[in-house]
């Protein structure tokens, strides 16, 4: 599936819930199924700055697609990163670079996060895009 289609799917899923407690329950479930980062990449260098809980993200190039793995010490944060990984993992670097992140606003996620977590979300997206830029440079 294309990034745009996955994003639409996520927006639809979130719209089905009646309140934010249910959405959080769903995010916690997503967090539990997050593709975990290998221990060797769980280093201080891979910690995303701007998050108050610790977040590690790693990207591997498999064929021409980027595969993301991640982890966090907070479960809701894991849920947030799981949503991002679902949208951006297994995609070509160029598509990731060009993808917009409007769906985050459509879910209403940002406004329901504390300011520190919302900053963290922005940092996570930035990190994912940076990986894409780095690998794109390598590919071209």
């Amino acid at each position, binding site marked *: 599936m294309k990034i745009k289609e996955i994003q639409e799917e996520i927006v639809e899923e979130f719209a089905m819930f009646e309140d934010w407690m249910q959405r959080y329950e769903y995010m916690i479930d997503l967090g539990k199924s997050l593709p975990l980062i290998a221990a060797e990449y769980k280093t201080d260098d891979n910690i995303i700055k701007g998050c108050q*809980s610790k977040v590690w993200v790693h990207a591997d190039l498999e064929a021409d697609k980027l595969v993301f793995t991640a982890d966090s010490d907070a*479960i809701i944060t894991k849920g947030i990163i799981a949503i991002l990984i679902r949208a951006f993992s297994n995609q070509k670097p160029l598509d990731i670079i060009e993808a917009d992140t409007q769906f985050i606003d459509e879910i209403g996620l940002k406004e329901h996060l504390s300011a520190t977590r919302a900053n963290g979300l922005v940092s996570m997206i930035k990190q994912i895009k940076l990986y894409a830029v780095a690998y794109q440079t390598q590919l071209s």
Partner: protein
Amino acid sequence: MAMFEVTKIREDFPILKREVNGKPLVYLDNAATSQTPQQVIDVIVDYYSNYNANIHRGVHALSQEATDKYEQARQKIQKHFNAKNAYEIIYTSGTTHSINIVANGFSSFIKKGDEILVSAMEHHSNIVPWQMLCERTGATLKVIPMNLEGELLMGEYDALLSKSTKLVFCNHISNALGTINPIAEIIEKAHAVGAAVLIDGAQAAPHLVADMQALDVDFYTVSAHKICGPTGVGILYGKEEWLTKLPPYQGGGEMIAEVSFEKTTYAGLPHKFEAGTPNICGGIAFGAALDYMNQIGFKAIADYEHQLLEYATEELLKIEGLKIYGTAQQKTSVISFNIQGVHPYDIGTILDKLGIAVRTGHHCAQPIMDFYKIPGTVRASFSFYNTKEEVDILVTGVKRATAMLV
């Protein structure tokens, strides 16, 4: 007030009527900022509606009125903390500003080889200025350690004190743990070796009345926003002899006696430390907040908050896997806790969705978190306008969050 009528008191606080995320607000972040009663809000509105003017300068009526009210508030603050003179009360923007005035001023007295002691449970605002002072002067910063309960090891304090000790800094009450520190003993022992003492009273002022003369403390700092007053205003209390010796912190209007391009002579106390147009309305409202608190009575407030603390501690400890950090014998109504295997941010996030405001994180006291080897805690801090029912809502909320998160 014969009996503590919390329902009646709550009516004074308009914010307590609001809803958050569709639920009635349960405000348990009082150690960060207390809420403001209508009586104080009215004073703020009255100031801007009727006599907003710059103080100490104008000859006109409004300026005179504003000056009178601002100086009357200073006297109220002086009386409340039993300072010897009103000019020993310096208006500041809050505790952090107050501490920086002293830390900056001491640069002129401190030299290489001198030692500065801070307690292990300080807020960053009471660590960083002293580190900066040490960097500037070559003095050494030493730490008074604490035990697992969150109590200072007074034997270690005795051992650290020496003729090289020039300054001792300690909070009266820890913001992260709620510990009430034995400041009278700390001050007395520091004075015995000739060291000056600054006590950060930010967390103590809402719960008890510190007597400057009885304590014989050299410096004491308070923020109005933790004691039912507005944000952006506070005080530095300093003994006259110290304030006279300390150089001014900022240059500007109000702090001068005479200015020429060759030389400026500084104004006397308190104006020497009050450069520029101050938070006039804030100072006046600070006085009104003290009036409000005193009308309820600090003894009644402390007794009631202690009941809340005991009840909340008992109920929270019934939750499996819950651990409280800071179990000092002497503590105020602050409970820092974690649930085993759950990140404090996660609990705080779910509690927020339930309308419950708590603080999560390191509470600007990272050394304490390092001491306990944890990333942070959830902190519920209770004020005299909180109720047992709100404690129950918190406990139910924590249980619900735990069920979701574990």
